[in-house]
């Protein structure tokens, strides 16, 4: 890719980054939302994280993996249990990556 195309991507991504994140914060924080809308928004974090986990572990890199031989899936289960037990996202992430490497070696 040419130097000018790389700069075009950098600038375009910077604009897109801010344009997708800022307006909803600025506008909705100044609006009086009805109770149902606030409740709806309160469910977004859990559902968004669940979606991100599923996308990342069931079909990593766009490839569906057999659940029984999927190191991402089993390492994710261990990560979740580790976080639930110890309430440390750093500890859970380290345990998870270590398990992922072990499962990858075991499951081929």
């Amino acid at each position: 890719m040419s130097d000018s195309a790389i700069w075009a991507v950098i600038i375009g991504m910077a604009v897109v980054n801010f344009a997708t994140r800022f307006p909803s914060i600025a506008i909705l924080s100044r609006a009086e939302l009805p109770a149902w809308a606030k409740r709806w928004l309160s469910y977004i974090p859990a559902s968004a994280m669940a979606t991100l986990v599923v996308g990342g572990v069931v079909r990593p890199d766009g490839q569906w993996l057999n659940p029984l031989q999927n190191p991402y899936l089993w390492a994710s289960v261990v990560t979740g249990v580790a976080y639930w037990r110890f309430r440390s996202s750093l500890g859970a992430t380290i345990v998870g990556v270590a398990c992922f490497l072990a499962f990858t070696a075991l499951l081929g």
Partner: protein
Amino acid sequence: MPEQTSKQDACPSRARFVRGLKLGLPIFLGYAPIGAAFGIVARGLGFTPLQAAICSGTALAGAGQLIALQLMGAGAGAAAVVFTTAIVNLRYVLFGAAMSQHVAGMSLPRQAFLAFTLTDETFAVNIDDSRRGTADFASMAGVGVIAWTGWVLGSAAGALAAGAIGDPTRFGVQFAMPAMFTALLVAQAEDRTHVLTALVAALCAIGLMLVLPDPWYLIVAPILAATAATVVSR
């Protein structure tokens, strides 16, 4: 909703900022290696280390940046790459909407700063902290600054040392992001309704991945699950 101050009044803003840095430290440690992976691949596609660092520092798009590199590697033009990044980033419209309920009362420049540093991980950590009543601008800024630093330093280091590091996947870097998402998901599971909502979202995501082109499931699945939860919990 007024800016939360109840538990912070006795605590100066610098201490709250440092508390945010500590809260975000796991994000720093997760972002640095993934950022390095971005830097390595970017270097291979013709980015200079400075361009890789600027890209990470201004986009802070995580998965969006890695997908952009994949497309560039496949020969896509700049417009197609930016358009795809916009689609991948659409979920941040939702995240911003959810964040808006926790940053009401803050000035526009402060909200702009928090929007700039809004990522999947800073969002989850700040929302969790807000629900405990311990978050304010200083702590959220601390989370954002440390996450940004990890991502940019990692990207720069990866691009500078691309030759020496080699293939980052042998360190399990590809699982760092799913691992963080998993921990953050469990952190959001505060009651049975939220657990059920997460389960519905997971099932929706699997179904939508089968029928929709990527990456639409990322935004449609949370909308469906949150709507179902709102209707059922009425």
